[in-house]
């Protein structure tokens, strides 16, 4: 089967609705189909990869550790829109430390999060063949 560039655009906060959780399920399947998968986090979607998520008080499963496993599925490009972070008073330090291991460089750990401006993200989206928004 052909390989295409798939981008998953995450626009919603992680727990107010089910979109983030069910998006992650599609991402893992997309990776299993050996597609070129990347993720974008815009708007409230940036909260999906925020550090120190605790869900005890709302009775829901904290699924944020799953984002740390994405590198193992060769999902290594997580674009975060700079404007969305800034509008929410967040910086990269507020986000989880998400990395992947580069087998071509002796399994060196590399950051998965790529901070991009809105215009840069538009250019990356332009390179995609399938864009699924959640």
């Amino acid at each position, binding site marked *: *089967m*052909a390989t295409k560039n*798939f981008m998953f655009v995450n626009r919603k906060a992680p727990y107010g609705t089910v979109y983030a959780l*069910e998006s992650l399920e*599609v991402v893992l399947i997309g990776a*299993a189909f050996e*597609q070129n998968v990347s993720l974008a986090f815009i708007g409230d979607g940036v909260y999906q990869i925020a550090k120190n998520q605790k869900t005890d008080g709302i009775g829901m499963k904290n699924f944020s550790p799953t984002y740390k496993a994405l590198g193992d599925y060769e999902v290594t490009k997580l674009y975060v829109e700079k404007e969305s972070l800034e509008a929410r008073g967040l910086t990269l330090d507020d986000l989880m430390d998400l990395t992947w291991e580069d087998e071509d460089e002796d399994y060196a750990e590399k950051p998965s999060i790529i901070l991009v401006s809105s215009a840069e993200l538009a250019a990356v989206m332009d390179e995609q063949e*399938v*864009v699924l*928004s959640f």
Partner: protein
Amino acid sequence: MKYSIMVNEGPYTHQASDTALQFCKAALDADCEIFRVFFYHDGVNNGTRYTVPPQDDRNIQKEWSKLAEAHDIDLVICIAAAQRRGIMDADEAKRQGLDGDNIAPGFRISGLGQLIEGGIIADRQLVFGD
């Protein structure tokens, strides 16, 4: 042009399902192909035959079934999303020990791989949602 469609919202609360349906009809009228319609999130609620809207309103679920029958369109409901929301076919209901199923004619239940495959095979994949 070959399209794959993704519907992410249930009927009536959001317009997404209506718009997707209208898009499919327009695309078919223009001799385009609809490779598959994949229902995800609350979109799986488009596929229960127990939908009974008031008589003066449109029956979105039946419109999908009619479209599938007339044009042999593959309507796929995501199994994981369906299980969360109580959409069952006979096999799945039996497997879960439930006393009945509710899937509508023309729909089938399958996995997320069908969505990815749709994206790979179609020229364009369109998402209808919130």
